[in-house]
C-alpha cells in the first residue's frame, strides 16, 4: 500500500530543490516568510519550555521539529478561513495571526487564551482528541452554504486517526463536499505509542480511500512541500471538490509535554537522522543564495524582543477574575447559578 502513497518532497535534507517544477513558484519573499515564521514560533516554543521549568507557565506541549508543517500549512490559508487546532498547533495559529500574549496565557490556565483576535476564525485548541475534525467539517460546510470562497483546516496528530471522530468527520465532509483540509501531522507517536501500535496501515494518507477523497503523503519537514500541497488542497476545496487528507510526516524533537519523558519510550537513536526543518531551510537558502546573515540576526533579535514583550505582558495581565467562572456558561445566568455566584462572592468577601 505504501508505494501508492510515496512521500512528496520539494527539497531534500541538504536543501537542494529536487522537484524542479517548483522553481518558478518559489520566490525570495516566500522563503523569507517561511524562515521568519519558523524562527518566530521556535523562539516562542523554547521560551515556553523555559518558563515552564521556572514555574512561570503550566504544563506545556512543545512543537519543536514540526515548524515546517505548521508554518507551511498556516501560510497557505486564506484570510477568512477557519482554523481548528490541537494543543500542539499554536505554531500554526501564531503564524496565522493568533495573539502571542494570549497564547502564553492559555498555557497559564487562562481562559482568555482561548479567545482569538476579532475577525480571526481560530477555534480554541481541541483537547479531547479528534473532536475538532467533524467541527471543522461543519464550519467549512457552513461557508459552502453561505456561498463564500472560505474553507477550513483541521489539524490533528497520528494518534487522532484512531478515534471515531476522525472517521465520522471525514465521512461527513466527503459526502457534503465541505471545503476542508484535514491536515495530519504524523510525528510518529501518540504520547508514547509509536505509529505501528496505533494502526496497521503503513500510511495515514491511504485512509482517504475509505472516503473516496484525495490523500497525499508529504515530507512534513519540507516547508515547500507542505505549503504547496496544502494550497493545492485548498484550491481543490474552494473549487467545490470537497476535502483532502494530507499526511505530513514529521518528528517531535522533544517531549509530548513538559510533564513527559520521552527517554522512557523512544529508542535513543530514533529521530537522530531527521534533519531539523529550520536547518533544512537554511541549507536551501544558502544553496540558492538567499541567505542573508544580517537579516537573520536582525529577525532573531526582533523575535526575541517580541517574545520577551509577550511574556512580560502575559505576566502583567490582570489577574484571573473569579466572575469569569460563572458569567460565560450561558448567555444569561440562570437563577440558581446566579445564587451560587452571589454566595461564593460573599464567601470570598468574608461574609
Amino acid at each position, binding site marked *: 500500500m505504501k508505494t501508492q502513497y510515496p512521500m512528496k518532497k520539494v527539497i531534500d535534507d541538504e536543501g537542494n530543490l529536487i522537484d524542479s517544477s517548483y522553481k518558478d513558484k518559489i520566490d525570495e519573499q516566500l522563503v523569507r516568510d517561511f524562515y521568519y515564521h519558523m524562527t518566530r514560533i521556535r523562539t516562542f516554543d523554547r521560551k515556553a519550555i523555559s518558563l515552564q521549568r521556572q514555574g512561570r507557565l503550566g504544563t506545556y506541549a512543545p512543537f519543536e521539529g514540526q515548524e515546517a508543517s505548521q508554518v507551511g500549512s498556516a501560510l497557505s490559508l486564506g484570510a477568512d478561513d477557519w482554523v481548528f487546532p490541537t494543543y500542539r498547533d499554536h505554531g500554526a495559529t501564531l503564524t496565522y495571526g493568533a495573539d502571542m500574549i494570549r497564547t502564553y496565557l492559555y498555557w497559564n490556565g487562562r481562559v482568555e487564551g*482561548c479567545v482569538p483576535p476579532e475577525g480571526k476564525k481560530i477555534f480554541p485548541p481541541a483537547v479531547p482528541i479528534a*473532536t475538532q475534525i467533524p467541527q471543522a467539517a461543519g464550519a467549512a460546510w457552513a461557508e459552502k452554504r453561505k456561498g463564500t470562497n472560505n474553507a477550513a483546516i483541521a489539524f490533528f496528530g497520528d494518534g487522532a486517526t484512531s478515534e471515531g471522530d476522525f472517521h465520522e468527520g471525514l*465521512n461527513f465532509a466527503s459526502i457534503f463536499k465541505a471545503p476542508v483540509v484535514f491536515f495530519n501531522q504524523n510525528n510518529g507517536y501518540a504520547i508514547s505509542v509509536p505509529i505501528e501500535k496505533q494502526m496497521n496501515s503503513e500510511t495515514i494518507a491511504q485512509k482517504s480511500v475509505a472516503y473516496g477523497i484525495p490523500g497525499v503523503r508529504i515530507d512534513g519537514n519540507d516547508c515547500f512541500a507542505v505549503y504547496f500541497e496544502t494550497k493545492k488542497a485548498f484550491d481543490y476545496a474552494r473549487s467545490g471538490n470537497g476535502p483532502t487528507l494530507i499526511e505530513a510526516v514529521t518528528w517531535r524533537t522533544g517531549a509530548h509535554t513538559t510533564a513527559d519523558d520521552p527517554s522512557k519510550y523512544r529508542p535513543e537513536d530514533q529521530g537522530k537522522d531527521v534533519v531539523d526543518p529550520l536547518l533544512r531551510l537554511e541549507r536551501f537558502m544558502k544553496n540558492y543564495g538567499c541567505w542573508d546573515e544580517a537579516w537573520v540576526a536582525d529577525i532573531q533579535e526582533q523575535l526575541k524582543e517580541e517574545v520577551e514583550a509577550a511574556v512580560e505582558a502575559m505576566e502583567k495581565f490582570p489577574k484571573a477574575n473569579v466572575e469569569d467562572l460563572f458569567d*460565560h456558561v450561558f*448567555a444569561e445566568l440562570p437563577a440558581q447559578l446566579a445564587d451560587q455566584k452571589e454566595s461564593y462572592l460573599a464567601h470570598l468577601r468574608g461574609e
Partner: protein
Amino acid sequence: MAMEIRDIPQTKETTQLLTMVQAVNDGMKTMLELDEKTLILGEDIGKNGGVFRATEGLQERFGADRVIDTPLSEAGIIGTSIGLAVNGFKPVAEMQFLGFIYPAYEQIMTHVSRIRMRTMGHFTVPMVIRAPYGAGIRAPEVHSDSTEALFTHMPGLKVVCPSSPYDAKGLLIAAMEDPDPVLFLETMRNYRAKREDVPAGKYTVEIGKGKKVKEGTDVTLIAWGAMIPVVEKAAEQAEKKGISCEIIDLRTLYPLDRDIIAESVQKTGRAVIVHEAHSTGGLGNDIVSIINDTSFLYLRAPIERVTGFDVPVPLFALEDHYLPTPARVVQGIEKVVHF
C-alpha cells in the same frame, strides 16, 4: 411563576388541533420559514419524515439542502452541527431516540456545553438537539431510555421536556431562538395521545418555567413529559379518597424552576416526585434537594419519589413493570399524606 411570553402569532386568528408530534413539526416548519439560518439534520428525517413523522413534509417544502438526511453517525451529526452553529447557522439535530445519543456524548459534554465558557462568549453554539425518549410503546431494546439526568449534570446545556402540544411548539421555538444549546426531549408515548389547540405561526413558551397543571392543597405532585398523564390519573384517584393534589409540570429540566416547586410545597407541606428514569441519579434527587434547601421547615412528611427502578429499561415484555403507574403514584401519595 409559570409565565408564558408569547410573540404575536403570525396568523392571529388561526389555531389548529394538533398532536404533540404535529406541534413539533409545526414548530420546525414555522422557524424554517422565518429564519433561513435554520437547518434540520438527522437520520431518516428527509423523504421518510423521521421514524415518528416529526419532520414529515419538511424536506419536500424546504429542500434537501435545509432538511438534511445525514449518515448514521451521531457524533458526526453533533460535531458538524457545532461547526455549523459557530459559523452562523441554527441547526436542529435529531437523535433518532435518546438511547442513541450516547455516541455523541463526548461532543455534547466537552464542546456543545463548553464552547461559550471556553471562549468567554466569542464562539457560541445556538443549536437544538431533539430526541424522543421514554418507555411504554413496546419499542425494541435501548429505544426506551429516559436519561435526562445525564444531561442536566452538564452545565452549559439547557434541557426541556414538554408534555403537551401547545408547550411543545412554544418551547421548541424558544429553544431554536435560544442563544444557548438546548436538549429537547419528546415523549414518544404521548406523541399522539391527545390533540390540543395550537396557535399557527410563531409563539414561545419561556424556558426555565414550570406550569401548575392543577391546583390542590394536600400534596404537590411534581413530574414532566410522559409522566404528566400518569400523575393526572393518580391525582384523580387520590381525589376520590379525599386527597387534594397539586400538579406541577416542570417543562424545563435545566435550569429547574425552583420557585414553582418551593411555592407549592410550602403550601401543601408534602411532595411526591415522579419520573421514569432510574431512582439513583435521577432528577428526582435534585428536586428533593431543592425542597430541602427552600422548604425544610414546611415539610410534614418525607418526600416520596416514584420512579423507574435501578435496572436498565427492560425488553418490552416487562416495561410496564419498569414504569411508574398511577397505582404506584397513589401509593406514594398515601404514604406522604398518612405519614
